[in-house]
Each structure stands twice: as structure tokens, then as C-alpha cells.
């Protein structure tokens, strides 16, 4: 009982949140000044054709009926057809989202692996040299525009040093040579045992992912530092010192343990931000991800594609939020009650 009830509650809130999300995308689809009928029949159709098409598309029905139909369609994975690619939107998204997911995941791993220790280290040496250097790095992460860093990165590491691959996900002569299992090239090439493709995909993804990671790092390090400072000022830190606990353990056991929960929220937000698809980075690196897809769709007034992409991004946000809530309960005894 005690285990079933929270799970049921969890699913219910999840369902309600998704319904809210659908309501928002539905309303957006109705209020934008793009006429979906015109998009189908063209602007030279007769008024009769227009009306007949409008009725056939169900746009004469009451909004409630239209919304119910929309929810039913989405539940079946039916997101309509994209005007610009001519393919079902769901199919397009299944292709572009893994590209973004792969880059964002690598980015957040880099951001967390470097950002958290940097923040802890900065807090331990508050006001000293190391702290100042980390502060400047963090500030750079806020101040430098993503596209500029992307271009400079390409000029240095691709054009001059030839350390990394250029734009795109993989060298063009390998493009399409890796069969799709997950849509993640690094994983698919390994499943296939194709090390050449793996190396190529890695050399392409490493620079944009590092740049994304740098932006995540700046935020994560800054938040970690301030969370740590708050904990280090607490009385239980004095207690630990009174017991003779060494400083290394005071940092990682006594101060870091209580901030894990807050950090999960920060990392979750940061990850969700990367998963939305960094339009700038995806454009500079010709990355066929969701940010690129959404931009193209917007510029072509491709409403089905825009709504589909918005829905996926919204779902990712909800998913990450719920996921970090669940971790919250796992890590903080006070939230378990």
C-alpha cells in the first residue's frame, strides 16, 4: 500500500501534466496566424474548395471535440505530416531527437564531471587563487556567445589543428553506412562493431559537446560553489571538526552529501536546456538535431513540425523534472516522510 499509492499518485500527476502540455500546444496551434487550410490548398483555391477542405480537416468542429481528437492522435503517435520534409512529423522527430540527445548527454556528462569538482574546490578555497580562476571560467561561460565559441573552436581545432571532425555528425563517406538501432551514432557504430564509424562520429561530436559542456559547467560550478559555501557555514561542520574529521571528508561527506539534492535540480535543468537543442550550436555545426529542425520548421510555417517538436521538448522537460523529483526522495531522508 505504502508503495503503490505514491506510484499511482506519480502517474496521475504525470498524466495531468501531459494533458496540460497538450492543451498548450493545441492552443498555440489555433492562435498562430497561420491558416492550416491555406497551407494545404494553397492561396489560390476557390472558397468552395477551401470550405470543403476545412470541413474535411475537422476544423469546423467545436474546440473541445478538436482537442479530444488531437489528444487521441498524439496518444497514437500521430503528429501529422511535415510540410517542409513531406514525411510524418513523428518519423522526423525520431530521426532528429537522437542527434540532439547524443550531443546533450555527452555535454552534460562533461559539464557535471568537471563542474561539480570545480565548484567544490572553489568553495574549499574561497577567496583564494583557485576560486578566482574558477570564477572567471564561470563568467566566461555566461558571457561568451555560443556561436562565437563554436566558430572559433572550428577554426582552431578543425581547420588548423585537424584534431576533430568538422560540421555534421559523421564523415560524409560514412554517412548512412551505420544501420540505425538507437539513432545514437556512437552506440550504433559500436553495436555494429564499426570502429572507423565510431571514431569518426566521436571526432565530430566531441567539439560541439565540449562547448555545450562548457556552458553547463559554468552554471553547475557556480551553483555547486554557492551550495557548498552555505553548507560549510553550518554548525554540523563544526561538529565534524570537533570529532577530528579530516577536511577532505568534511567537504565530500558532510558538506557535499546534503547538497546532492539541490544539485540534481540544477543538473536536471541544465540537461533539459541542452536537450531543447542549442539552435546556435546546431546551426554552426550543421547538426541535424531538434534545434535545427525546429528552426527550419518555424521559418517554413510548418505548424505540424513546430507543434510536434514543441511537444517533444515539453515532454523532455516534464520527464526530467519528474525524474529529479524521484531522485530527490531517494537522496534526502527529510523528503521521504
Amino acid at each position, binding site marked *: 500500500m505504502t508503495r503503490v499509492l505514491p506510484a499511482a499518485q506519480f502517474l496521475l500527476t504525470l498524466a495531468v501534466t501531459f494533458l496540460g502540455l497538450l492543451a498548450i500546444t493545441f492552443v498555440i496551434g489555433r492562435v498562430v496566424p497561420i491558416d492550416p487550410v491555406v497551407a494545404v490548398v494553397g492561396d489560390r483555391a476557390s472558397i468552395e474548395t477551401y470550405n470543403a477542405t476545412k470541413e474535411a480537416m475537422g476544423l469546423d468542429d467545436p474546440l473541445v471535440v478538436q482537442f479530444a481528437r488531437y489528444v487521441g492522435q498524439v496518444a497514437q503517435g500521430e503528429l501529422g505530416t511535415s510540410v517542409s520534409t513531406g514525411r510524418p512529423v513523428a518519423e522526423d522527430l525520431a530521426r532528429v531527437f537522437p542527434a540532439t540527445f547524443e550531443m546533450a548527454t555527452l555535454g552534460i556528462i562533461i559539464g557535471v564531471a568537471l563542474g561539480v569538482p570545480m565548484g567544490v574546490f572553489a568553495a574549499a578555497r574561497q577567496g583564494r587563487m583557485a576560486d578566482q580562476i574558477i570564477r572567471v571560467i564561470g563568467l566566461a561561460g555566461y558571457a561568451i556567445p555560443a556561436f562565437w565559441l563554436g566558430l572559433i573552436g572550428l577554426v582552431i581545432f578543425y581547420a588548423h589543428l585537424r584534431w576533430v571532425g568538422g560540421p555534421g555528425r559523421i564523415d560524409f563517406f560514412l554517412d548512412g553506412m551505420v544501420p540505425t538501432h538507437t539513432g545514437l551514432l556512437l552506440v550504433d557504430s559500436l553495436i555494429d562493431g564499426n570502429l572507423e564509424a565510431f571514431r569518426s562520429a566521436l571526432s565530430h561530436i566531441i567539439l560541439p559537446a565540449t562547448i555545450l559542456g562548457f556552458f553547463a559547467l559554468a552554471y553547475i560550478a557556480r551553483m555547486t560553489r554557492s551550495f557548498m559555501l552555505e553548507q560549510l557555514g553550518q554548525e*554540523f561542520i563544526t*561538529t565534524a571538526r570537533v570529532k577530528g574529521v579530516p577536511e577532505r571528508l568534511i567537504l565530500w561527506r*558532510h558538506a557535499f552529501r*546534503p547538497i546532492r539534492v539541490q544539485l540534481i535540480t540544477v543538473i536536471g535543468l541544465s540537461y533539459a536546456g541542452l536537450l531543447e537543442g542549442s539552435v546556435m550550436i546546431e546551426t554552426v555545426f550543421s547538426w541535424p538535431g531538434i534545434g535545427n529542425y525546429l528552426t527550419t520548421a518555424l521559418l517554413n510555417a510548418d505548424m505540424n513540425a513546430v507543434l510536434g517538436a514543441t511537444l517533444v521538448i515539453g515532454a523532455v522537460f516534464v520527464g526530467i523534472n519528474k525524474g529529479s523529483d524521484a531522485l530527490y526522495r531517494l537522496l534526502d531522508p527529510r523528503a521521504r516522510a
Partner: protein
Amino acid sequence: MSLLSVENLRVTFPTDHGPADVVRGLSFTLGRERLGIVGESGSGKSMTGRAIMGLVPAPGKVTADQLMFNGKDLRGLSEDERRDLRGTAMSMVLQDPKFSLNPVIRIGEQIEEAMAVHGTLGRRERRERALEALTAVRIKDPERVARLFPHEVSGGMGQRVMIAMMVVLEPALMIADEPTSALDVSVRGQVLDILADLVSRRGMGLILISHDLNMVARWCDRILVMYRGEIVEEIASGALMDAQHPYTRGLVASLPTIDETRDRLPVLDRGKL
């Protein structure tokens, strides 16, 4: 030989207007007895305790002509050597268990940690000692309490846990910094009883820091009265009413008693001090 002997102890903090002494030239000795330090907020009593523990926060500076503990000169010790003493030879009970216990670590683990970091005992022995310590502070169901998190126990029990944690390695010196001021009046006596009982049974020296004159007079053998970083008077606890210094007499005079009929309590006249 005395357990602790302090001569001309000074704690100084740099400020914008030059260095400020918060403890100015304190001298006293402590045997295996109960010594009370009383004084108002900011009189330097807590900082004296931290200076002995070696826990005066950075930019603060501690100097003394003598700081001998158990025959060791604390002044010459490295940071690591001071740390080795903490928990094993000297420890300190802090004020409020709501803040002084780590909120995300189980009580049992927090008690065992003191033994673990000093690395003398095996895992099973640590666990046994932790349960013994909880029993010693009169916790009836130590196995259950050891598995709890600090927010799951009351303030009085939290403070008993704190005491258990600090006596588990049987230090020779125990400093209690306002150990009961965050507790309900009804459990204060009980917590002090436990503390005093452990101290006398294990032959520790106790420094009880408090602003509660009555309490200190009842529990301690001797009292140091501090004011503005200095000891203004040292009195035997029974002789509180015979205090000579105007500050002490002012404090005694402003204590309310249960059968009094005064309209107003007298206020300290600081101009005369």
C-alpha cells in the same frame, strides 16, 4: 598536574579598524573538575572554548604564553596533530542539535564516524561502542535510534545523541558550549544530569560555557565570570552571593527569583564597570 593550563590567551580578529581582541589575556587552570564560564553574549566565552579546541575560524589568530593540555604544548602542534587530539582527547558539545547534527547522515553513522576517522577500532567494535554510548546517555532503544536521521528525534534526544558522540572515545576534556539553551526547560536538567554523570564517572574535566548563572552555580565546582574578553572574577560555586566584582554583583542582582515582589529587575549599570 592540571589537565589544562592556560596563560595569557588571546584571540584576535583583523577588522577594518585594526585588530580586535575578542579574548584578552585569559589565564586559568583546569583539573578533573567542572569549571563554569559565564558571561553575556560577546564576552568571549565561546571563543575561549574554540581556541582550546583549535577551531577559531580563519582570519582569527590565537596566541598564548602557555597552552598546556595533558602535558602537551598545544601551541607547537601542527594542524594534523591538533586534529588527532580532537574527538579522542578533547571534544565539545554544541548548542543546538537541530543544527549541529548532519541532517542526511544516520545517527549511528555519525557516532561511529569519530571512531572511524581516528582509525583504532574495527567496524563491529565501532558499532558496539556507538550503541553503548547511546545507552550511556539513557536512550532506551539504541538500535532503533542509531538508524534514525536527526530530524526524526526530539531536541532533548538530539542533544543526548550529541553527548554520546562526544564521549564515545572517552576524551579527557569536555567543553560544553551552551549545551541546554536550545532545549525545553523540562529536559534541560535531565541532559545536564547525564553530562555531569558521564564527566564524573569517566574522570573528565568539564568546561561548561553558559550565560545561565543559576545553572552554572548548581553544576560547577568553580565559576569564571567573563566580561569583554577578560575574566573579571573567579568564584567557588557556593559563594556566588559573596561575589566582589561589580559586574558579577550586577548579574546576581538582576536574577529573578520565584518569591520576589520587585516591580522591575535592576539593569546593569555599565558606566560603573
